[in-house]
């Protein structure tokens, strides 16, 4: 018997290292897709914005979670939405927001994308299931 496919929205609020939450979110995302479900959105909020920094350098024998998210997004054509207000406060910027803030460096590139909380609201209101990590 094949169960019906559901549209999931994931809210990631843990950093890419230091707590398990974001790793669990990633594993859950992989499991969903493997089971034939659809991920309508992955939204990074609070400490979750650190998952978007391409300046993280895990040890060679450890999981590179930022890269793992990128690979997941590319394989399944997902966008990775990052709350702009939460990100800028924590030192995660894309090229445009860095320029606007007079900064010379940035660390967020596609498929991660800075955006407003409106897209989290939209996902929370419309997905079949919303899971917070």
């Amino acid at each position, binding site marked *: 018997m094949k169960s019906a496919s559901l549209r999931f929205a994931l809210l990631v609020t843990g950093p890419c290292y230091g707590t398990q939450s974001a790793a669990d979110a990633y594993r859950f995302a992989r499991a969903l897709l493997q089971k034939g479900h659809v991920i309508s959105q992955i939204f990074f909020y609070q400490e979750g914005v650190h998952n978007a920094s391409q300046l993280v350098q895990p040890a060679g024998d450890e999981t590179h979670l930022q890269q793992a998210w990128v690979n997941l997004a590319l394989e399944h054509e997902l966008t990775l939405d990052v709350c702009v207000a939460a990100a800028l406060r924590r030192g995660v910027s894309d090229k445009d927001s860095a320029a606007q803030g007079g900064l010379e460096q940035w660390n967020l590139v596609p498929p991660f994308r800075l955006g407003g*909380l*409106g897209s989290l*609201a939209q996902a*929370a209101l419309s997905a079949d299931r*919303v899971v917070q990590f």
Partner: protein
Amino acid sequence: MNKVAFIFRTPPHGSASGREGLDAVLATSALSEDIGVFFIDDGIYQLLSGQDPSLVLGRNYAPTFGLLELYDVDNVYISAEALAERGVPAERLAIDAAVLSQSELQRRLADYNVRLSF
């Protein structure tokens, strides 16, 4: 459209969770009037009036909870048990909202099919 409940369970100091939860509530209120806001456990401290977070280099966002009414967020609930456990009378809170028993709170929460915790 889902009914989304926002559950505040952390104090205003120590982490930015409450502040960022409030931002999420206000953003969602622009798209739906059918949202609920719950204050349980240490989350009731979010609503204390007379806070001075500048002493811990924080911003006093508690008055922003007053915007909920303006944004037509009417379903705001506070745990009576959490208030009693912490010795906080409802009069010390910055907003007027329904103070509910644990069983009533659980019954209201069951109305929401999406729950986000801050």
